């Protein structure tokens, strides 16, 4: 199978043609390299193609936003990354960015302005919500999600850090599945354990791994799908499900994947 008509223009290609994208899709490192999250990137690009948004990616010109370095204390490295990225973004005159990574989202949106990078930044759940509101994305008849239970795990960097609680839930609503909340949700949501650069080192000694604690709570809802909106949450929850030997019954899926699936794009 080939997807020949899929368009994935880079900003450079567009610029060469004298064009500019309406919105830049910031893919992020996990979305570019991590096998599992690459699937999310692909699903999201399929949706963007399907609705005909004029988007572009930086492609090989994208680099780490610097978030993990910053959270781990290396401000120098963060600022080097940030400045370089801002130069690229401003060079192309980018004004609007969407990303499927809450860490990139938070950094681009809240932390780049102080270094001179000012963009309108939205998380992919917010773009999906807009598309749903505009009637551009919706459930095809006889969706496979009807009657199934989905729980949503709040990403700390989307939720508490930026108060985005509703958009992901609105996205899940169109699936026509039953959304079951965990006891610790929204402002009280429990972290997956990967934020603050924890993704890049082992946890300190303790009595339990955070992702296992969180996965137990998610499994406790009886949902067969754990929806996430963050590459790190994805890894942590998937590892947790594996740890509980529930991979056969419970899937961890990103919001974009669920929508693409419901639309028959995958």
């Amino acid at each position: 199978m080939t997807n020949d008509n899929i368009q994935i223009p880079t900003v450079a290609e567009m610029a060469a043609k004298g064009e500019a994208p309406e919105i830049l899709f910031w893919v992020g490192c996990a979305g570019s390299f991590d096998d599992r999250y690459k699937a999310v990137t692909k699903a999201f690009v399929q949706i963007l193609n399907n609705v005909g948004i004029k988007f572009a990616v930086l492609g090989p010109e994208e680099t780490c936003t610097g978030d993990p370095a910053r959270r781990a204390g290396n401000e120098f490295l963060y600022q080097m990354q940030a400045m370089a990225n801002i130069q690229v973004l401003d060079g192309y005159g980018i004004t609007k960015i969407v990303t499927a990574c809450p860490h990139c989202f938070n950094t681009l949106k809240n932390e780049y302005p102080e270094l001179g990078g000012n963009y309108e930044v939205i998380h992919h759940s917010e773009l999906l919500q807009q598309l749903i509101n505009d009637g551009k994305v919706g459930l095809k008849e006889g969706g496979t999600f009807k009657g199934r239970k989905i729980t949503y795990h709040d990403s700390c960097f989307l939720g508490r850090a930026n108060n985005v609680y509703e958009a992901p839930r609105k996205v899940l609503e169109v699936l026509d599945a039953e959304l079951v909340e965990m006891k610790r949700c929204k402002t009280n949501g429990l972290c997956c354990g990967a934020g603050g650069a924890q993704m890049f080192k082992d946890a300190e000694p303790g009595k339990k791994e955070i992702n296992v604690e969180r996965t137990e709570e998610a499994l406790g809802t009886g949902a067969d799908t754990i929806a996430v909106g963050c590459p790190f949450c994805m890894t942590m929850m998937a590892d947790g499900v594996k740890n509980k030997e529930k991979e056969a019954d419970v899937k961890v899926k990103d919001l974009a994947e669920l929508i693409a699936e419901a639309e028959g794009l995958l």
Partner: protein
Amino acid sequence: MIAQLAFLVVLGIFGFLIFRRIQRIKQNIHLGKSQEINDRKDERLKTMLLVAFGQKKMFKRLLPAFFHFLIYAGFILINIEVLEIVLDGLLGTHRLFAPFLGSFYTVLISFFEILAVLVILACVVFLIRRNIFKLDRFHKIEMKGWPTLDANLILVIETVLMLAILSMNAADQVLQTHGAEHYTQTGSFLISGFMVPMFENMSTSSLLILERSAWWFHIVGIFAFALYVTYSKHLHIFLAFPNTYYSRLEPKGKMGNMPEITNEVKLMLGMPADDSVAPPVEGMKFGAKDINDLTWKNLMDAYSCTECGRCTSECPANQTGKKLSPRKIMMDTRDRMEEVGDSLAKGGKGLEDGKSLLGDYVTKEEINACTSCNACVEACPVNISPLEIILQMRRYVAMEESGSPQSWNMMFQNVETNFAPWKFAPTDRFNWADELKSPNA
């Protein structure tokens, strides 16, 4: 006359001690770095009214919020009665407000008495909750010793003070019926009225002694309490207000910038630097090792901490048995401030005593365990950010000591050389696009 003089002396002594203590706290907070916070005044006022005055965040947990509110409301309103007591003490009058207010005075005092009973009730509930039900968050390691005693002492003192008011009022009413001099007729008060039978058979002279003792006990108790508060976690009853006024209003995910680094980075990249930022000076540290590397707001946070442990009970690291406890971070910061302040007051070495917040109080193991999830910040009823202090210490460890965990150093290296936190070739970054276009290739 002698009583008035004695009162004046007592008031003076406590006034002086409390004033001195406030000065010390101010000095300690000023050990922190300056930071200007004077924007968005309306929003700040609103935050203060909602969070401190309205206790908005307490109501995330209803039952404790309710009982805490009783103590809080009781505390504020009964102070009106304290005002009368202080004026009586100074002027040598008795129940100064009674003649002016007439029967409304009886209603008012009765209302205060109801509050007093509710305060006692709430204190008893809290004592039971702490000591019999042993709520987990009150028995973490950092609560051993003084912090636990402090919490219990306050509850007991408040109960005793309220009982003193009630006894004083009851004795007063009996004295009124005895027609004792000065004892203005007020009629029966709602609650202490029921206590009258306990005192009825006493002689006027012993009643006088009892009423006066209760009066003195109550007012000296209040003064002592006010002084005690400044040494205790109960400082939050005052500091909650300024501390919420100076809340961080930015999205919680935003980390504070380091302009001194921005300039160096700009120079390295050949960009013009910002002249308004002071160039790095000799001995300037990146990040925080000790309290003077934190901002005054971080330090005010520490003095405002109620030690309630809501932060710690929400912390994912703490819940899964890691050493990190955001409450401990705040308590350590405060303890270190007190230590430095005491030393300075005695002409000692102060900050140069060879100790520091990071290392002697807080360990790397603790700060490394933080996921920067903001659960602690969200949970705190007085808008404290333990996270800000943790991240500042991480900056110190990473940039001044190069002492980050090995895996983080590797991650730094990857970002530097591969522009991604993992060891992938930068040239592979866009491979996903080809994979999507021809999935089976």
